[in-house]
Protein backbone atom coordinates (compact mmCIF):
# COMPACT_ATOMS: atom_id res chain seq x y z
CA UNK A 1 0.00 0.00 0.00
CA UNK A 2 1.56 3.20 -1.09
CA UNK A 3 -0.97 5.82 0.00
CA UNK A 4 -1.23 6.96 3.59
CA UNK A 5 -4.38 6.38 5.58
CA UNK A 6 -6.76 9.30 6.03
CA UNK A 7 -7.37 10.51 9.55
CA UNK A 8 -10.82 8.95 9.38
CA UNK A 9 -9.34 5.57 8.48
CA UNK A 10 -6.91 5.83 11.35
CA UNK A 11 -9.76 6.44 13.78
CA UNK A 12 -11.60 3.47 12.28
CA UNK A 13 -8.52 1.28 12.86
CA UNK A 14 -8.54 2.44 16.49
CA UNK A 15 -12.22 1.61 16.86
CA UNK A 16 -12.25 -1.74 15.19
CA UNK A 17 -9.29 -3.98 15.89
CA UNK A 18 -10.55 -6.43 13.23
CA UNK A 19 -9.76 -4.01 10.42
CA UNK A 20 -6.76 -6.10 9.34
CA UNK A 21 -5.95 -4.17 6.14
CA UNK A 22 -5.70 -0.89 7.95
CA UNK A 23 -3.68 -2.39 10.80
CA UNK A 24 -1.32 -4.02 8.32
CA UNK A 25 -0.68 -0.66 6.69
CA UNK A 26 -0.14 1.02 10.03
CA UNK A 27 2.46 -1.60 10.89
CA UNK A 28 4.40 -0.93 7.73
CA UNK A 29 4.01 2.82 7.34
CA UNK A 30 5.90 4.92 9.89
CA UNK A 31 3.96 8.23 9.47
CA UNK A 32 0.61 6.45 9.81
CA UNK A 33 1.87 4.55 12.84
CA UNK A 34 3.03 7.80 14.44
CA UNK A 35 -0.34 9.41 13.84
CA UNK A 36 -2.20 6.44 15.28
CA UNK A 37 0.04 6.34 18.32
CA UNK A 38 -0.52 10.04 18.96
CA UNK A 39 -4.09 9.08 19.87
CA UNK A 40 -3.62 5.49 21.00
CA UNK A 41 -0.89 6.47 23.49
CA UNK A 42 -3.01 8.97 25.45
CA UNK A 43 -5.93 6.52 25.32
CA UNK A 44 -3.75 3.83 26.94
CA UNK A 45 -2.71 6.27 29.66
CA UNK A 46 -6.36 7.23 30.10
CA UNK A 47 -7.23 3.59 30.68
CA UNK A 48 -4.41 3.32 33.20
CA UNK A 49 -5.65 6.41 35.01
CA UNK A 50 -9.24 5.09 35.16
CA UNK A 51 -7.96 1.81 36.61
CA UNK A 52 -5.75 3.68 39.04
CA UNK A 53 -8.66 5.77 40.22
CA UNK A 54 -10.88 2.73 40.63
CA UNK A 55 -8.18 0.87 42.57
CA UNK A 56 -7.42 3.90 44.74
CA UNK A 57 -10.93 4.02 46.14
CA UNK A 58 -11.28 0.26 46.25
CA UNK A 59 -9.59 -0.06 49.63
CA UNK A 60 -12.16 2.18 51.23
CA UNK A 61 -15.10 0.01 50.28
CA UNK A 62 -16.79 -2.46 52.57
CA UNK A 63 -16.79 -6.02 51.48
CA UNK A 64 -20.06 -7.85 51.03
CA UNK A 65 -20.92 -9.02 54.51
CA UNK A 66 -22.64 -12.25 55.33
CA UNK A 67 -26.15 -11.31 56.31
CA UNK A 68 -26.85 -11.22 60.01
CA UNK A 69 -30.27 -11.60 61.59
CA UNK A 70 -31.59 -8.11 62.16
CA UNK A 71 -34.58 -7.27 64.35
CA UNK A 72 -37.18 -5.46 62.30
CA UNK A 73 -40.70 -4.32 62.65
CA UNK A 74 -42.59 -6.61 60.37
CA UNK A 75 -45.75 -4.70 59.59
CA UNK A 76 -47.34 -1.41 60.49
CA UNK A 77 -49.70 -3.12 62.91
CA UNK A 78 -46.70 -4.71 64.66
CA UNK A 79 -45.12 -1.31 64.94
CA UNK A 80 -48.21 0.31 66.38
CA UNK A 81 -48.67 -2.66 68.67
CA UNK A 82 -45.23 -2.10 70.09
CA UNK A 83 -46.12 1.37 71.19
CA UNK A 84 -48.70 1.86 73.89
CA UNK A 85 -50.55 4.92 75.18
CA UNK A 86 -48.31 7.95 75.41
CA UNK A 87 -45.66 6.32 73.25
CA UNK A 88 -48.15 5.71 70.52
CA UNK A 89 -49.24 9.34 70.36
CA UNK A 90 -45.66 10.50 70.50
CA UNK A 91 -44.76 8.11 67.71
CA UNK A 92 -47.60 9.36 65.55
CA UNK A 93 -46.63 12.95 66.19
CA UNK A 94 -43.01 12.18 65.39
CA UNK A 95 -43.91 10.49 62.11
CA UNK A 96 -46.16 13.40 61.19
CA UNK A 97 -43.56 16.03 62.01
CA UNK A 98 -40.84 14.23 60.12
CA UNK A 99 -43.03 13.60 57.12
CA UNK A 100 -44.14 17.21 56.94
CA UNK A 101 -40.56 18.46 57.32
CA UNK A 102 -39.35 16.20 54.54
CA UNK A 103 -42.29 17.24 52.36
CA UNK A 104 -41.50 20.89 53.02
CA UNK A 105 -37.83 20.43 52.16
CA UNK A 106 -38.73 18.60 48.96
CA UNK A 107 -41.22 21.28 48.07
CA UNK A 108 -38.67 24.04 48.58
CA UNK A 109 -35.88 22.12 46.92
CA UNK A 110 -37.85 21.36 43.76
CA UNK A 111 -39.33 24.83 43.50
CA UNK A 112 -38.16 26.48 40.32
CA UNK A 113 -38.05 29.92 41.91
CA UNK A 114 -35.75 28.74 44.71
CA UNK A 115 -33.52 26.99 42.21
CA UNK A 116 -33.43 30.15 40.13
CA UNK A 117 -32.45 32.21 43.18
CA UNK A 118 -29.61 29.83 44.04
CA UNK A 119 -28.48 29.88 40.44
CA UNK A 120 -28.63 33.67 40.27
CA UNK A 121 -26.57 34.16 43.39
CA UNK A 122 -23.51 36.15 42.52
CA UNK A 123 -20.72 37.34 44.68
CA UNK A 124 -20.69 41.09 44.85
CA UNK A 125 -17.51 43.08 44.85
CA UNK A 126 -17.19 46.73 45.62
CA UNK A 127 -15.23 48.20 42.72
CA UNK A 128 -13.03 51.19 43.39
CA UNK A 129 -14.67 53.98 41.41
CA UNK A 130 -12.34 56.72 42.62
CA UNK A 131 -10.56 57.07 39.22
CA UNK A 132 -13.93 57.62 37.51
CA UNK A 133 -15.33 60.11 39.97
CA UNK A 134 -15.61 63.58 38.43
CA UNK A 135 -13.29 66.01 40.13
CA UNK A 136 -13.95 69.67 40.44
CA UNK A 137 -10.90 71.81 40.12
CA UNK A 138 -10.59 74.66 42.55
CA UNK A 139 -10.16 77.16 39.78
CA UNK A 140 -13.35 75.96 38.11
CA UNK A 141 -15.39 77.57 40.85
CA UNK A 142 -17.06 80.74 39.79
CA UNK A 143 -20.09 82.76 40.65
CA UNK A 144 -21.08 84.91 43.54
CA UNK A 145 -24.01 86.52 45.18
CA UNK A 146 -25.26 89.57 46.93
CA UNK A 147 -28.19 91.09 48.63
CA UNK A 148 -29.33 93.62 51.16
CA UNK A 149 -32.51 95.23 52.41
CA UNK A 150 -31.94 98.75 51.10
CA UNK A 151 -30.51 99.96 54.43
CA UNK A 152 -29.05 103.44 54.45
CA UNK A 153 -25.70 102.23 55.79
CA UNK A 154 -23.23 99.88 54.05
CA UNK A 155 -23.07 96.21 55.06
CA UNK A 156 -21.26 95.48 58.29
CA UNK A 157 -18.32 93.15 58.78
CA UNK A 158 -19.08 89.64 59.99
CA UNK A 159 -18.68 85.95 59.37
CA UNK A 160 -20.27 83.99 56.54
CA UNK A 161 -23.09 81.59 57.37
CA UNK A 162 -22.94 77.84 56.69
CA UNK A 163 -22.19 76.68 53.14
CA UNK A 164 -24.78 74.37 51.64
CA UNK A 165 -26.38 73.15 48.42
CA UNK A 166 -29.74 74.72 49.20
CA UNK A 167 -30.79 78.02 50.64
CA UNK A 168 -33.93 78.27 52.72
CA UNK A 169 -33.19 81.49 54.58
CA UNK A 170 -30.82 84.20 53.35
CA UNK A 171 -28.24 85.47 55.84
CA UNK A 172 -29.54 88.68 57.43
CA UNK A 173 -29.37 90.52 60.62
CA UNK A 174 -32.71 89.29 61.81
CA UNK A 175 -35.61 91.59 62.48
CA UNK A 176 -38.05 88.76 63.14
CA UNK A 177 -38.78 88.44 66.82
CA UNK A 178 -39.55 84.95 68.16
CA UNK A 179 -39.69 83.13 64.81
CA UNK A 180 -41.95 80.05 64.79
CA UNK A 181 -39.59 77.94 62.68
CA UNK A 182 -35.87 78.58 63.08
CA UNK A 183 -33.71 77.77 60.06
CA UNK A 184 -30.01 78.40 59.86
CA UNK A 185 -29.21 80.85 57.08
CA UNK A 186 -27.00 79.36 54.35
CA UNK A 187 -25.12 80.38 51.22
CA UNK A 188 -24.99 78.19 48.11
CA UNK A 189 -21.26 77.62 47.82
CA UNK A 190 -19.33 74.35 47.26
CA UNK A 191 -18.34 73.06 50.71
CA UNK A 192 -14.63 72.89 49.79
CA UNK A 193 -14.46 76.51 48.64
CA UNK A 194 -11.88 78.86 50.04
CA UNK A 195 -13.81 81.45 51.97
CA UNK A 196 -12.42 84.31 54.01
CA UNK A 197 -12.71 83.50 57.73
CA UNK A 198 -13.66 86.21 60.21
CA UNK A 199 -13.98 85.50 63.90
CA UNK A 200 -17.06 87.51 64.85
CA UNK A 201 -20.29 86.35 66.46
CA UNK A 202 -22.67 88.11 64.04
CA UNK A 203 -23.24 87.50 60.33
CA UNK A 204 -21.95 89.95 57.75
CA UNK A 205 -19.61 90.48 54.83
CA UNK A 206 -16.09 89.43 55.86
CA UNK A 207 -14.62 91.96 53.45
CA UNK A 208 -16.63 94.95 54.69
CA UNK A 209 -15.56 97.55 57.18
CA UNK A 210 -16.69 97.31 60.76
CA UNK A 211 -19.59 99.54 61.56
CA UNK A 212 -23.18 99.61 62.59
CA UNK A 213 -25.00 96.33 62.12
CA UNK A 214 -26.65 96.62 58.69
CA UNK A 215 -27.82 94.46 55.81
CA UNK A 216 -26.50 96.92 53.24
CA UNK A 217 -28.07 98.87 50.36
CA UNK A 218 -28.82 95.89 48.21
CA UNK A 219 -32.18 94.27 47.68
CA UNK A 220 -33.95 90.93 47.86
CA UNK A 221 -32.74 89.70 51.24
CA UNK A 222 -29.20 88.79 52.18
CA UNK A 223 -26.47 91.28 52.93
CA UNK A 224 -24.41 93.69 50.84
CA UNK A 225 -24.91 95.88 47.82
CA UNK A 226 -26.13 93.29 45.32
CA UNK A 227 -29.41 91.47 45.05
CA UNK A 228 -30.83 88.00 45.59
CA UNK A 229 -30.19 86.59 49.03
CA UNK A 230 -26.41 86.20 49.13
CA UNK A 231 -23.63 88.30 50.59
CA UNK A 232 -21.64 90.81 48.59
CA UNK A 233 -22.05 93.00 45.49
CA UNK A 234 -23.17 90.31 43.02
CA UNK A 235 -26.52 88.66 42.47
CA UNK A 236 -27.78 85.30 43.68
CA UNK A 237 -27.38 83.22 46.80
CA UNK A 238 -23.55 82.99 46.83
CA UNK A 239 -20.80 85.26 48.06
CA UNK A 240 -18.85 88.03 46.33
CA UNK A 241 -19.08 89.53 42.86
CA UNK A 242 -20.60 87.46 40.10
CA UNK A 243 -23.93 85.71 39.89
CA UNK A 244 -25.83 82.53 40.50
CA UNK A 245 -24.36 81.19 43.71
CA UNK A 246 -20.82 80.03 44.40
CA UNK A 247 -17.83 82.21 45.07
CA UNK A 248 -15.02 83.84 43.17
CA UNK A 249 -16.75 86.19 40.75
CA UNK A 250 -17.97 85.71 37.21
CA UNK A 251 -20.10 82.89 35.98
CA UNK A 252 -19.47 79.17 35.72
CA UNK A 253 -17.07 77.81 33.16
CA UNK A 254 -17.93 74.74 31.14
CA UNK A 255 -16.35 71.59 32.60
CA UNK A 256 -15.82 70.39 36.15
CA UNK A 257 -19.41 69.22 36.47
CA UNK A 258 -20.90 72.15 34.50
CA UNK A 259 -22.48 71.20 31.16
CA UNK A 260 -22.29 73.43 28.10
CA UNK A 261 -25.37 75.38 26.96
CA UNK A 262 -26.81 74.35 23.61
CA UNK A 263 -28.42 76.49 20.94
CA UNK A 264 -32.23 76.28 20.68
CA UNK A 265 -32.89 79.12 18.26
CA UNK A 266 -30.46 80.76 15.94
CA UNK A 267 -30.48 83.83 13.66
CA UNK A 268 -28.03 84.04 10.78
CA UNK A 269 -25.98 87.26 10.93
CA UNK A 270 -26.42 89.82 8.21
CA UNK A 271 -23.57 91.07 6.11
CA UNK A 272 -22.62 94.70 6.53
CA UNK A 273 -22.64 96.81 3.39
CA UNK A 274 -18.89 97.59 3.52
CA UNK A 275 -17.96 93.97 3.97
CA UNK A 276 -20.15 92.88 1.07
CA UNK A 277 -18.55 95.45 -1.20
CA UNK A 278 -15.07 94.42 -0.10
CA UNK A 279 -16.01 90.73 -0.47
CA UNK A 280 -14.63 90.24 3.01
CA UNK A 281 -14.94 86.87 4.74
CA UNK A 282 -13.88 85.55 8.14
CA UNK A 283 -14.87 84.54 11.62
CA UNK A 284 -15.74 86.64 14.66
CA UNK A 285 -15.12 85.03 18.06
CA UNK A 286 -17.51 86.23 20.74
CA UNK A 287 -17.58 85.84 24.51
CA UNK A 288 -21.08 85.17 25.83
CA UNK A 289 -22.55 84.50 29.20
CA UNK A 290 -25.68 82.35 29.00
CA UNK A 291 -27.88 82.90 32.03
CA UNK A 292 -30.13 80.39 33.81
CA UNK A 293 -32.97 81.18 31.45
CA UNK A 294 -30.91 80.57 28.34
CA UNK A 295 -30.53 84.20 27.26
CA UNK A 296 -27.16 85.50 26.10
CA UNK A 297 -25.69 88.27 28.26
CA UNK A 298 -22.50 90.36 28.36
CA UNK A 299 -21.58 89.65 24.77
CA UNK A 300 -18.04 90.82 23.99
CA UNK A 301 -15.80 90.43 20.98
CA UNK A 302 -12.72 88.32 21.61
CA UNK A 303 -11.41 88.17 18.03
CA UNK A 304 -12.73 91.01 15.86
CA UNK A 305 -13.06 91.03 12.09
CA UNK A 306 -13.87 94.65 11.37
CA UNK A 307 -15.89 96.35 8.60
CA UNK A 308 -19.00 96.36 10.82
CA UNK A 309 -19.17 92.57 10.94
CA UNK A 310 -18.43 92.46 14.72
CA UNK A 311 -21.55 94.52 15.42
CA UNK A 312 -23.64 92.37 13.08
CA UNK A 313 -22.41 89.24 14.85
CA UNK A 314 -23.33 90.64 18.28
CA UNK A 315 -26.75 91.67 16.98
CA UNK A 316 -27.40 88.18 15.67
CA UNK A 317 -26.22 86.38 18.80
CA UNK A 318 -28.32 88.65 21.01
CA UNK A 319 -31.39 87.13 19.37
CA UNK A 320 -30.22 83.58 19.95
CA UNK A 321 -31.90 81.39 22.52
CA UNK A 322 -30.04 78.69 24.44
CA UNK A 323 -30.81 75.74 26.61
CA UNK A 324 -28.82 76.81 29.71
CA UNK A 325 -25.73 75.00 30.98
CA UNK A 326 -26.41 72.81 34.00
CA UNK A 327 -24.64 71.97 37.22
CA UNK A 328 -26.03 69.07 39.29
CA UNK A 329 -29.10 69.13 37.06
CA UNK A 330 -29.91 72.79 37.74
CA UNK A 331 -29.52 75.57 35.16
CA UNK A 332 -26.67 77.92 36.00
CA UNK A 333 -25.16 80.92 34.23
CA UNK A 334 -22.28 79.73 32.10
CA UNK A 335 -19.68 81.55 30.06
CA UNK A 336 -19.07 80.37 26.50
CA UNK A 337 -17.37 81.36 23.27
CA UNK A 338 -19.19 81.51 19.96
CA UNK A 339 -17.67 81.61 16.52
CA UNK A 340 -19.72 83.50 13.96
CA UNK A 341 -18.74 82.75 10.37
CA UNK A 342 -19.16 85.25 7.56
CA UNK A 343 -18.93 83.63 4.15
CA UNK A 344 -19.90 85.00 0.76
CA UNK A 345 -21.55 82.44 -1.47
Amino acid at each position, binding site marked *: MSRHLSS*RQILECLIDADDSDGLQHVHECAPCRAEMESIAG*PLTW*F*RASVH*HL*GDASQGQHPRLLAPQPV*PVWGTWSDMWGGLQGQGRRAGAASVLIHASLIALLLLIGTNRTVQQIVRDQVQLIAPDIAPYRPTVKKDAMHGGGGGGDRSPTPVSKGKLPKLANKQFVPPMISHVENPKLVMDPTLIIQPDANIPKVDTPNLGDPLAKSGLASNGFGSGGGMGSGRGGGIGPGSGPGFGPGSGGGIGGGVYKIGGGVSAPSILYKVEPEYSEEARKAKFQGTVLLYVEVDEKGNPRNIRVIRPLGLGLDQKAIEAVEKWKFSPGKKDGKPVPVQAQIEVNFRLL
Partner: protein
Amino acid sequence: MERAVSSDAVPATVGSGGPLDDFEGLFEQYRPRIYRFILASLRNNESAENLTQDCFVRAYLARDQLRSASSAGTWLMQIAANLVRSHETSGRLKFWRRTLRADIDLSDAGDWIPDRQMSPEQVAVAKQQVEKIWKVAARLSGKQRTVFLLRYAEDMDLLEIATITGMKEGTVKTHLFRALKSVRAALEDQRK
Protein backbone atom coordinates in the same frame (compact mmCIF):
# COMPACT_ATOMS: atom_id res chain seq x y z
CA MET B 1 -43.05 -8.46 69.55
CA GLU B 2 -39.69 -8.19 67.88
CA ARG B 3 -39.18 -10.44 64.99
CA ALA B 4 -35.95 -11.48 63.48
CA VAL B 5 -35.59 -12.12 59.80
CA SER B 6 -34.71 -15.72 59.41
CA SER B 7 -31.55 -16.45 57.54
CA ASP B 8 -33.34 -18.01 54.61
CA ALA B 9 -35.11 -14.75 53.75
CA VAL B 10 -31.84 -13.20 52.62
CA PRO B 11 -29.63 -16.13 51.75
CA ALA B 12 -25.93 -15.78 51.35
CA THR B 13 -26.03 -18.03 48.37
CA VAL B 14 -28.63 -18.28 45.72
CA GLY B 15 -30.70 -21.41 45.39
CA SER B 16 -28.95 -24.45 44.03
CA GLY B 17 -28.49 -25.16 40.38
CA GLY B 18 -28.39 -21.56 39.00
CA PRO B 19 -25.34 -19.97 37.43
CA LEU B 20 -25.17 -17.51 40.30
CA ASP B 21 -24.68 -19.96 43.11
CA ASP B 22 -21.83 -17.93 44.37
CA PHE B 23 -23.18 -14.39 44.31
CA GLU B 24 -20.50 -13.23 46.71
CA GLY B 25 -17.84 -14.50 44.35
CA LEU B 26 -19.51 -12.72 41.49
CA PHE B 27 -19.63 -9.54 43.55
CA GLU B 28 -15.94 -9.76 44.44
CA GLN B 29 -15.04 -10.43 40.85
CA TYR B 30 -17.03 -7.72 39.11
CA ARG B 31 -17.44 -5.01 41.75
CA PRO B 32 -14.17 -3.18 40.89
CA ARG B 33 -15.04 -3.12 37.23
CA ILE B 34 -18.61 -1.94 37.73
CA TYR B 35 -17.50 0.64 40.27
CA ARG B 36 -14.75 1.90 37.97
CA PHE B 37 -17.12 2.26 35.04
CA ILE B 38 -19.71 4.18 37.04
CA LEU B 39 -17.04 6.35 38.65
CA ALA B 40 -15.57 7.24 35.27
CA SER B 41 -19.06 7.96 33.92
CA LEU B 42 -20.27 10.15 36.77
CA ARG B 43 -16.95 11.32 38.23
CA ASN B 44 -18.44 11.27 41.68
CA ASN B 45 -17.43 8.83 44.41
CA GLU B 46 -20.67 8.90 46.32
CA SER B 47 -22.91 8.35 43.32
CA ALA B 48 -20.59 5.61 42.08
CA GLU B 49 -20.84 3.76 45.40
CA ASN B 50 -24.60 4.09 45.49
CA LEU B 51 -25.09 2.98 41.92
CA THR B 52 -22.67 0.06 42.32
CA GLN B 53 -24.73 -1.12 45.24
CA ASP B 54 -27.97 -0.59 43.29
CA CYS B 55 -26.51 -2.51 40.41
CA PHE B 56 -25.77 -5.59 42.53
CA VAL B 57 -29.09 -5.37 44.34
CA ARG B 58 -30.90 -5.36 41.00
CA ALA B 59 -28.72 -8.17 39.73
CA TYR B 60 -29.49 -10.17 42.86
CA LEU B 61 -33.24 -9.60 42.55
CA ALA B 62 -33.22 -10.50 38.88
CA ARG B 63 -30.71 -13.33 39.20
CA ASP B 64 -33.14 -15.79 37.63
CA GLN B 65 -32.90 -14.01 34.29
CA LEU B 66 -29.24 -14.84 33.88
CA ARG B 67 -28.73 -18.06 32.06
CA SER B 68 -24.99 -18.59 32.00
CA ALA B 69 -22.27 -17.38 34.32
CA SER B 70 -20.01 -16.57 31.37
CA SER B 71 -22.16 -13.59 30.37
CA ALA B 72 -22.42 -12.27 33.94
CA GLY B 73 -19.94 -9.46 33.28
CA THR B 74 -21.85 -8.20 30.27
CA TRP B 75 -25.13 -8.55 32.10
CA LEU B 76 -23.91 -6.60 35.13
CA MET B 77 -22.40 -3.93 32.91
CA GLN B 78 -25.73 -3.64 31.12
CA ILE B 79 -27.45 -2.95 34.45
CA ALA B 80 -24.74 -0.45 35.35
CA ALA B 81 -25.03 1.37 32.03
CA ASN B 82 -28.81 1.61 32.44
CA LEU B 83 -28.40 2.90 35.98
CA VAL B 84 -25.94 5.55 34.84
CA ARG B 85 -28.32 6.64 32.12
CA SER B 86 -31.34 6.91 34.39
CA HIS B 87 -29.21 8.62 37.03
CA GLU B 88 -28.22 11.32 34.56
CA THR B 89 -31.70 11.94 33.23
CA SER B 90 -33.69 11.76 36.44
CA GLY B 91 -35.91 14.62 37.33
CA ARG B 92 -35.81 17.91 39.06
CA LEU B 93 -33.34 17.04 41.80
CA LYS B 94 -30.66 16.81 39.10
CA PHE B 95 -30.04 20.50 39.63
CA TRP B 96 -29.13 20.01 43.30
CA ARG B 97 -26.97 17.02 42.53
CA ARG B 98 -25.04 19.05 40.04
CA THR B 99 -24.74 22.03 42.39
CA LEU B 100 -23.83 20.21 45.57
CA ARG B 101 -21.91 17.15 44.44
CA ALA B 102 -18.26 16.78 45.22
CA ASP B 103 -16.71 15.64 42.01
CA ILE B 104 -13.49 13.73 41.96
CA ASP B 105 -10.45 15.82 41.46
CA LEU B 106 -9.00 15.37 38.01
CA SER B 107 -5.51 15.83 39.37
CA ASP B 108 -6.10 12.61 41.32
CA ALA B 109 -6.82 10.89 38.06
CA GLY B 110 -3.45 12.02 36.80
CA ASP B 111 -1.79 10.93 40.01
CA TRP B 112 -0.31 7.80 38.52
CA ILE B 113 2.98 7.55 36.69
CA PRO B 114 2.43 6.11 33.23
CA ASP B 115 5.87 4.63 32.82
CA ARG B 116 8.85 4.69 35.13
CA GLN B 117 11.23 5.06 32.21
CA MET B 118 9.66 8.25 30.94
CA SER B 119 11.36 11.57 31.54
CA PRO B 120 9.60 14.05 33.84
CA GLU B 121 8.66 16.17 30.83
CA GLN B 122 7.07 13.22 29.09
CA VAL B 123 5.22 12.31 32.29
CA ALA B 124 3.91 15.86 32.54
CA VAL B 125 2.74 15.81 28.92
CA ALA B 126 1.09 12.42 29.43
CA LYS B 127 -0.72 13.66 32.52
CA GLN B 128 -1.96 16.73 30.68
CA GLN B 129 -3.22 14.60 27.83
CA VAL B 130 -5.02 12.25 30.22
CA GLU B 131 -6.62 15.19 31.99
CA LYS B 132 -7.76 16.50 28.62
CA ILE B 133 -9.35 13.15 27.75
CA TRP B 134 -11.17 13.14 31.11
CA LYS B 135 -12.55 16.57 30.33
CA VAL B 136 -13.61 15.55 26.83
CA ALA B 137 -15.26 12.41 28.24
CA ALA B 138 -17.21 14.56 30.68
CA ARG B 139 -18.50 16.70 27.81
CA LEU B 140 -19.55 13.80 25.59
CA SER B 141 -23.21 12.85 25.28
CA GLY B 142 -24.39 9.98 27.50
CA LYS B 143 -24.29 7.33 24.78
CA GLN B 144 -20.95 8.44 23.40
CA ARG B 145 -19.40 8.47 26.86
CA THR B 146 -20.71 5.02 27.69
CA VAL B 147 -19.35 3.40 24.53
CA PHE B 148 -16.11 5.36 24.82
CA LEU B 149 -15.51 4.21 28.39
CA LEU B 150 -16.49 0.64 27.67
CA ARG B 151 -14.14 0.50 24.70
CA TYR B 152 -11.11 2.39 25.96
CA ALA B 153 -11.34 2.12 29.75
CA GLU B 154 -12.75 -1.38 30.00
CA ASP B 155 -11.29 -2.77 26.77
CA MET B 156 -14.48 -4.41 25.64
CA ASP B 157 -15.01 -5.42 22.02
CA LEU B 158 -17.66 -3.92 19.80
CA LEU B 159 -20.07 -6.87 20.05
CA GLU B 160 -20.04 -6.81 23.84
CA ILE B 161 -20.64 -3.06 23.82
CA ALA B 162 -23.52 -3.52 21.40
CA THR B 163 -25.08 -6.09 23.77
CA ILE B 164 -24.60 -3.88 26.80
CA THR B 165 -25.98 -0.71 25.28
CA GLY B 166 -28.67 -2.43 23.19
CA MET B 167 -27.42 -0.66 20.06
CA LYS B 168 -26.43 -2.13 16.72
CA GLU B 169 -22.73 -2.62 16.11
CA GLY B 170 -22.77 0.05 13.41
CA THR B 171 -24.35 2.55 15.80
CA VAL B 172 -21.71 1.75 18.41
CA LYS B 173 -19.03 2.42 15.81
CA THR B 174 -20.61 5.75 14.89
CA HIS B 175 -20.74 6.85 18.53
CA LEU B 176 -17.14 5.74 19.07
CA PHE B 177 -16.02 7.57 15.96
CA ARG B 178 -17.60 10.82 17.14
CA ALA B 179 -16.15 10.44 20.61
CA LEU B 180 -12.68 9.77 19.19
CA LYS B 181 -12.97 12.77 16.91
CA SER B 182 -13.63 14.99 19.93
CA VAL B 183 -10.68 13.41 21.75
CA ARG B 184 -8.39 13.92 18.80
CA ALA B 185 -9.51 17.53 18.37
CA ALA B 186 -8.80 18.21 22.05
CA LEU B 187 -5.38 16.57 21.90
CA GLU B 188 -4.44 18.49 18.76
CA ASP B 189 -5.66 21.67 20.41
CA GLN B 190 -3.28 21.02 23.26
CA ARG B 191 -0.30 20.39 21.02
CA LYS B 192 -0.69 23.76 19.30
